């Protein structure tokens, strides 16, 4: 695929994001075995895949929605959600920016992602997922040369069934939790990555998830397998149009880092957060977990600025001796957004190490909770954890909460936890303004400074994007 085509694809993916009228094949709302069979048939799946889905559906029906998170939202009627939607044809996507509602274009511009700047993504392979289908994956052949498999999960089911059978559900079992079980039953698309032994993936891999159709849920499924001694850096981005209704997004991401492998997974989550009055926005209920074998290294970096409600705990199971888990997070909530996010570090192996750096920023009337578990199992001889958990408050109507859970069953394990809560102080604002800096710029500068430790973990281009995103997300947070 030529550079031009890649640019076009990326542009189309973004441009498509702002089109409200795309002709889609959308399944009527409702969830039952027929719906699951329909999804499976649409993807022309083998029998074993359908059986796997139906098994998950049975599990899910027996489960109850979790209520322990520090978030409040009306009960979801899972029969009012449509579980499959795909554009009728790729040709239906807008051919040029002229087709896009200028207001939406403006929103994009404000996101700091003017389309021509996507050229910066030249060194990044992209899988673009639109509603329930992957519309294309770039650089596939180039990656294939070094044996890297990067395709949609739907394709992987056909082309690499052995890998999928072996690893799908191996990190997040079907019965893990309510939303994960639901995802197992109805997952639509997502990315599949396999890095062969000893291979260092030559470029960044990324997936852009886009919800477009109304009243649909998106159930992405991503599986990344890094074979022994391999390295990969993967990034996901997500956006959705502004709608008055709430839309459901329940994803499952599984990472498998075999001996000596390293996976770096970064997220810039910018789902529609709802309007300033708290209407609309995405319900983001996500299960992300990685398993690290001997000497393996898994690093999660997330910048969470979107969604009306976020329920998300990217976690590491440090199974192998000397394995390393990291979690770097910036979660920003404004207006009526609610986030309950954090991580779980499960130390099983000897000398396992984990680091958690969490930066929560609350503005408006939002609520932002950090929830983290550090568990040292009996076998975690000499394991170490360091947790730093900082909250920043903007204004006086928002809330920040911290729920750390620490369980140590090995006396040689060392766990450190530091937490701070601070405010953007009037004195800081005054200093900035006295130097000629306007209040919006001052807040964004102060918040960016607060997040610096996490931003430096992001790939360069995305660090800049994340900074700009914060600026937009904070708009209107200064009185």
């Amino acid at each position, binding site marked *: 695929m030529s550079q031009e085509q890649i640019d076009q694809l990326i542009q189309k993916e973004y441009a498509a994001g702002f089109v409200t009228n795309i002709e889609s094949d959308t399944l009527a709302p409702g969830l039952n075995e027929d719906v699951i069979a329909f999804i499976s048939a649409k993807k022309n799946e083998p029998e074993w895949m359908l059986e796997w889905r139906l098994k998950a559906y049975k599990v899910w029906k027996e489960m109850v929605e979790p209520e322990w998170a520090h978030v409040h939202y009306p009960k979801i009627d899972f029969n009012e959600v449509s579980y499959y939607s795909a554009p009728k044809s790729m040709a239906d996507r807008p051919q040029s920016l002229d087709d896009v509602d200028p207001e939406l274009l403006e929103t994009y511009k404000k996101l700091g992602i003017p389309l021509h700047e996507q050229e910066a993504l030249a060194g990044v392979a992209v899988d673009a997922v639109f509603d329930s289908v992957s519309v294309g994956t770039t650089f596939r052949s180039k990656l294939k040369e070094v044996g890297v498999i990067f395709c949609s999960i739907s394709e992987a089911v056909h082309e690499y069934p052995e890998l999928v059978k072996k690893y799908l559900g191996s990190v997040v079992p079907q019965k893990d939790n309510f939303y994960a079980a639901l995802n197992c039953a109805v997952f639509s698309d997502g990315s599949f990555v396999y890095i062969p032994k000893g291979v260092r993936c030559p470029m960044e891999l990324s997936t852009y998830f886009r919800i477009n159709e109304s009243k649909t849920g998106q159930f992405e499924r991503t599986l990344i397998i890094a074979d022994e001694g391999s390295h990969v850096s993967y990034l996901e981005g997500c956006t959705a149009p502004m709608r008055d209704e709430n839309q459901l997004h329940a994803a499952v991401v599984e990472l498998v880092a075999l001996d000596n492998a390293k996976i770096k997974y970064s997220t810039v989550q910018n789902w529609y957060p709802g309007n300033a009055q708290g209407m609309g926005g995405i319900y983001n209920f996500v299960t992300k977990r990685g398993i690290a074998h001997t000497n393996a290294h898994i690093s999660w970096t997330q910048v969470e600025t979107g969604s009306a409600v976020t329920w998300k705990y990217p976690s590491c199971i440090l199974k192998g001796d000397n394995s390393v888990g990291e979690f770097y997070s910036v979660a920003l909530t404004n207006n009526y957004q609610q986030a309950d996010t954090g991580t779980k570090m499960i130390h099983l192996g000897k000398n396992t190490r984990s680091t958690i750096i969490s930066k929560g920023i609350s503005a408006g009337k939002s609520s932002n909770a950090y929830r983290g578990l550090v568990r040292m199992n009996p076998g975690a001889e000499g394991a170490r954890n360091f947790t730093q958990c900082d909250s920043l408050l903007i204004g006086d109507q928002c809330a920040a909460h911290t729920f750390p859970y620490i369980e140590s069953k090995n006396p040689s394990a060392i766990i450190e936890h530091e937490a701070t809560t601070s405010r953007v*102080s*009037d*004195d*800081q604002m*005054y*200093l*900035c*303004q*006295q*130097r*000629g*800096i*306007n*209040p919006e*710029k001052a807040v964004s*500068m*102060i918040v*960016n*400074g*607060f*997040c*610096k*430790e996490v931003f430096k973990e992001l790939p360069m281009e995305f660090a800049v994007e994340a900074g700009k995103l914060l600026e937009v997300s904070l708009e209107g947070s200064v009185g």
Partner: protein
Amino acid sequence: MLSIKDLHASVEDKQILKGLNLEIKPGEVHAIMGPNGSGKSTTGHVLSGREGYNVDSGSIVFNGKDLLEMDTEERAREGLFLAFQYPVEIPGVSNMEFMKAAVDAVREHRGEEPLDSVSFMKKARERCKAVNLPIDFLKRGVNEGFSGGEKKRNEIMQMMLLEPKLCILDETDSGLDIDALQVVADGVNALRDSGRSFIVVTHYQRLLNYIEPDYVHVLSDGRIIKSGDKSLALELEEKGYGWLVTADEEGVA
């Protein structure tokens, strides 16, 4: 440059300034002295437009413009600079990034292009040298972990970078040893020219040995009760404020 007429101002409903009058011409250095609680620092904050500092009556004209009509940041862009008595820390925001934003905001206000990074850095390094701050302070968070003296020198460095028209120094000498005082004074003196004015708020005559004022004003209970040349500062050093304050009260009675 600056004309303050019959200024009454309050903080949290407490009246602090009660009829302040002050005229400052370009190039002049005015020292404001006075006992604790007389309204010295308040004067600086009212001029720079700090939130919560309310002007009840009176007027302030700055370079022909009504200062009270302007936001805090607008006043700064118009060339009003306040060197803080207690500079606050902004963790994670580098001095460099902070000052670049400030310099660009002022330039934009004047209709100028933002300074390119290379020119900015060159300037910033020069200013650091001038106030004896190591260059790596530009990379550190604004005032983050700076000592008292370093914070004050950092204020002067910022002032030199922004090249304001009116510089207000709010007890910049407090907590400084003699050497640091000399550095700060050198920085201020280097900026003195016919187009730039200074208001030097201080408790002590000592600073005025280093920064020679054209006028010295004594502020008491929110008004200027005596003005004179630099010899007034020496007289105050010798006699304290008591005699002036008493004389003023008797005069009023």
